[in-house]
């Protein structure tokens, strides 16, 4: 009975709200996850060649890094609005905007990671007869992976947060619930959706941290044994 009352009393935390609107919450969370995953995945696919261009051709490095940085300074609401004439009120608009944001961090970190590969490692691989493609895949990328993953984590966490602004076009995942609840001052819905959003960001970050540890087993061995080895 206390549960029934909390909706009427407009409490911040309300078990009855969670029970009666669980489907709505699950749907919003699913939309949030879809938009975030699509944005970060596309961002990674676009950022990778850009980073390779920026590294391989110094003439393009300035413009590529400059352009992605300029994109990052544009406020999210403005970014989504500027894309409106091209995409209409669609999820593609939100995803495109978020991809543009993720580029700054992803390109920067990938370039930094590739540049941090020691020259002697590259020389050694070349001496062993590695061609440029094999060098990239088997030597440079694995060594750049920690930096790339660090960028991916930052990009993912901020994308989860920025997705809420997509509610301006009705595709903001949990942001939609927050916006719906505002006119009626529905506290439980605003708080629940906000908390879910933060939990989603933290969960995504931990998941990527786990992936990074799986992909780079040698970093663990080195940090564990580095003192004894030297």
């Amino acid at each position, binding site marked *: 009975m206390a549960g029934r009352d909390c909706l009427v009393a407009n409490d911040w935390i309300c078990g009855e709200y969670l029970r009666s609107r669980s489907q709505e919450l699950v749907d919003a969370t699913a939309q949030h996850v879809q938009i975030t995953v699509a944005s970060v995945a596309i961002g990674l696919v676009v950022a990778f060649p850009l980073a390779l261009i920026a590294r391989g051709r110094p003439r393009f490095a300035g413009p590529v890094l400059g352009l992605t940085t*300029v994109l990052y*300074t*544009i*406020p*999210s*609401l*403005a*970014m989504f*609005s*500027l894309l*409106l*004439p091209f995409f209409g009120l669609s999820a593609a608009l939100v995803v495109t905007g978020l991809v543009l944001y993720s580029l700054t961090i992803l390109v920067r970190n990938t370039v930094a990671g590739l540049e941090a590969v020691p020259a002697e490692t590259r020389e050694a691989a070349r001496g062993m007869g590695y061609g440029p493609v094999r060098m990239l895949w088997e030597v440079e990328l694995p060594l750049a992976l920690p930096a790339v993953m660090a960028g991916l984590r*930052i990009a993912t*966490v*901020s994308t*989860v*947060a*920025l*997705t*809420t*602004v997509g*509610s*301006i*076009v009705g595709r*903001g995942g949990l*942001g939609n619930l*927050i*916006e719906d*609840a*505002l006119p009626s*001052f*529905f*506290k439980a819905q*605003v*708080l629940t*959706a*906000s908390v879910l*959003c*933060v939990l989603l*960001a*933290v969960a995504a*970050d931990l998941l990527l941290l786990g992936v990074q540890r799986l992909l780079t087993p040698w970093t663990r061995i080195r940090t564990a044994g580095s003192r004894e080895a030297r």
Partner: protein
Amino acid sequence: MDVPARTWAWLTNGANWSGEGGVWHLLGEHLYVSGVALALACAVALPVAFWLGHTGRGGALAVNISNVGRAVPVFAVLALFMVTPLRGAGYVPTIVALVLFAVPPLLTNAYVGMREVDRSVVEAARGMGMSGGQLLVRVELPLAYPMAMTGLRSAAVQVVATATIAAMVGQGGLGRIITAGFNTYDTPQVVAGALLVAVLALLVEAVLVAVDRMAAPLRRTV
């Protein structure tokens, strides 16, 4: 598709610039809340960061605050304020939210800047008989300046960008033009507002880069 032409018409229509809901008024509002928030955030974050950096403690704290800050949606924080009694307090919800978002980059960058000051330089200064206070003002602060300024730049840009979202919860600022356009399905107005906001954000970034270039204390000697 006559959006560009109608956007231009909106921007060049003097009626859209003057009066209570006009561009000039909203721009003033935008700069006012951004400025107050940035000043408050500096007043809170910089002394803490410089002190933590000087004593060499609290690094994990600074970095964690920064990481958590990135995970919290601005829109959610503003919305939370708007369902509390704070909603009746004028610009306060926006300013408080902006301060919360400006503190992490300021704190982290200033702290990291202080910690990256070459330890041998600090030791040498101490060996020359400098007191803790002298060390802070004459050695650590000038050397930490570039990093602290980088933090200030990202905080300022973030604050100006975030102030836009305030319009989504009914607060003021340039974002109003965009949200009003959405409510009336007026795409040219939405695009015009977005252009104005984007130009403002880029201008703020450019001005800060210029100020940074002119004011850097080490640039004269290097």
